[in-house]
């Protein structure tokens, strides 16, 4: 798989009053197309900053960021907006959907900014909402939906825009374990469909839904290794009758082994 995201010596400095905070110090990271990477670290480790740079919300202070072969580290605001619109989908911890718009309108929004005709983007939005199981909630506003449903609206917004990269910033952080599991299942589905997913989290269990974990400390990468036994949030038909124990995954980091067939997940 070709490299999709390439960071070379990326640093990011913030000025906080008199002092300069070094959020990232010379990070080198390559994410190939189709990977599912979790970025872990304590708060203040720079993981959010790293995600903002990958998401083209910020420009690095130093170093280069190459996205699909194109250096985007010093592009202008409008070019970055265009990249965010077409190539990157965000899923935030705090959902970040517009409260006054309905689910359908929220999902349509990236396509509105892309200039897609109304009928076409409506159809795409409906498909995307159907994909996350919200066909019956098209005209509800976020305050009429549960947290898990709102996050699914946010994911549908990403699906409708159909970007190659999906960035999740603690997407399950504000959800109960069951809703969180649903979200992880959807992300894993999206990964299975060939999308590149980068997840920022401080939760070991959530991170182990990915295939590779990058650990950050004080703005530097301290480890970067594949996940030996990834957790599957949904039963895996090809895994020899062994289902990923979503229930136990939520219960603790240790209970990540397969559960017996016919688990609760299947009956949902």
């Amino acid at each position, binding site marked *: 798989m070709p490299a999709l995201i390439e960071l070379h010596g990326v640093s990011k400095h913030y000025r906080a009053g008199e002092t300069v905070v070094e959020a990232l110090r010379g990070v080198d990271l390559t994410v190939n197309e189709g990977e599912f990477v979790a970025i872990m670290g304590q708060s203040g480790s720079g993981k959010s900053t790293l995600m903002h740079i990958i998401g083209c919300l910020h420009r690095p202070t130093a170093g280069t960021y190459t996205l699909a072969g194109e250096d985007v580290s010093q592009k202008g605001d409008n070019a970055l*907006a265009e990249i*965010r619109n077409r190539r990157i989908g*965000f899923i935030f911890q705090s959902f970040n959907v*517009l409260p006054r718009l309905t689910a359908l309108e929220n999902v349509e929004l990236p396509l*509105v*900014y892309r200039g897609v005709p109304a009928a076409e983007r409506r159809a795409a939005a409906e498909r995307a909402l159907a994909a996350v199981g919200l066909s019956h909630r098209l005209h509800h506003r976020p305050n009429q939906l549960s947290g898990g449903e709102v996050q699914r609206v946010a994911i549908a917004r990403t699906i409708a*825009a159909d970007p190659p990269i999906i960035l999740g910033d603690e997407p399950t952080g504000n959800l109960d374990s069951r809703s969180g599991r649903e979200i992880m299942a959807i992300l894993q589905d999206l990964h299975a469909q060939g999308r590149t997913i980068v997840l920022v989290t401080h939760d070991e269990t959530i991170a182990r839904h990915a295939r590779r974990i990058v650990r950050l400390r004080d703005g530097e990468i301290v480890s970067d290794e594949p996940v030996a036994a990834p957790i599957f949030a949904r039963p895996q038909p090809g895994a020899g009758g062994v289902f990923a124990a979503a229930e136990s995954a939520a219960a603790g980091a240790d209970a990540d082994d397969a559960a017996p067939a016919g688990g609760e997940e299947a009956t949902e």
Partner: protein
Amino acid sequence: MNLQESMRMAWRSLTGNRLRAGLTMLGVIIGVAAVVGLVAIGQGATKQVTAQIESLGSNLILVTPRSPVARLTVDDTTELLRRVPNLSAAIAGVSSNNVTVKWGNQSYTTTLEGTEPPYEAVRNFHVAYGRFITDDDLTYRRKVAVIGYKLYTDLFAEQNPLGEQVLIDGTSFTVVGVMEKKGQGMMGDNDDRIIVPVTSAQRLLRTNRISSITAQVKAGADAAATAAQISAIYQHKYPTNNPGRDDAVSVISQDQMLSTVSNVTRILTLMLGGIAGVSLLVGGIGIMNIMLVSVTERTREIGIRKAIGAKRRDILLQFLVESIILSLAGGAIGILLGFGLGRIATAFGLTVAYSLSAMVLAFLFAAAVGLVFGVYPASRAANLDPIEALRHE
């Protein structure tokens, strides 16, 4: 994103907060309504006064004494007619604003006007019943009176007044005619007066002076030049030593009257419009204020929009369109309300003349106000950093 989408979005956000949108518009509504309404009242006043001056007759020159030195008498009219060939008529006038007319046990307070026979033609104001004052009445100082239409209706209760005796300030006069209905004029209500021969009026008021000469310029002659000629005659008669002082006799042509009055009313209209314009400006500042609050409130929304790909221009347009919609809608409602204001003024007896140019100007000004006062908040929104905006609570 195109303009249509921006408008749809702006509309959504405005209708999402109707009370606020309404209150914000109120400033512009009141401003535009004030401009339209007040200019209509100002221009109505101009129109009314102009009509009143024109109702005096046509091509008139009014000669009035300005200082006690000037002693105008009935003979002045003959002298003017002799010395100024451009004049077709000149009538002497005496008036008293407050005379009591009694008929039987009825009593009525009105204006007394002493005049001469050409009055009817010069003032273009005729008798409806009976006859007007004649030269003989004048010569013999007959105690005859022609009553205004209002006296006919109010004092005589529409009974035949011809041949009736009335007491004017205690002196008995015979009513010989009733004037036609004319309405408001330059010198008050034309219908609320009693007209007698100038000589009889002088005797009644115990004076040998007259209070005005109304001269009519021949058709086609230059009224201004004629007025200057008359003025020269009186300047010679009553020289003023001090060049800065006014002439002892004021000579003013109808055109001068018109231009003086229209100058005054134009300034009045401009002042009213200006005051209204200030309120429109205040309305614009109100829009800016609310838009700034709205940007702060929606910082997070702006962050979300930016994160999913809204460009600077998209955000700018969204907020700008909002403020322009507010000001345009306010302008349109304001124009309607301005008409309502005119209606109310009409109900209070004012003449109003709606001015299309004032309406267009007020509307465009409102639109400009929305644009100008919307730019700053909109650009503030557009320039927000997406991450900062997303972190905003």
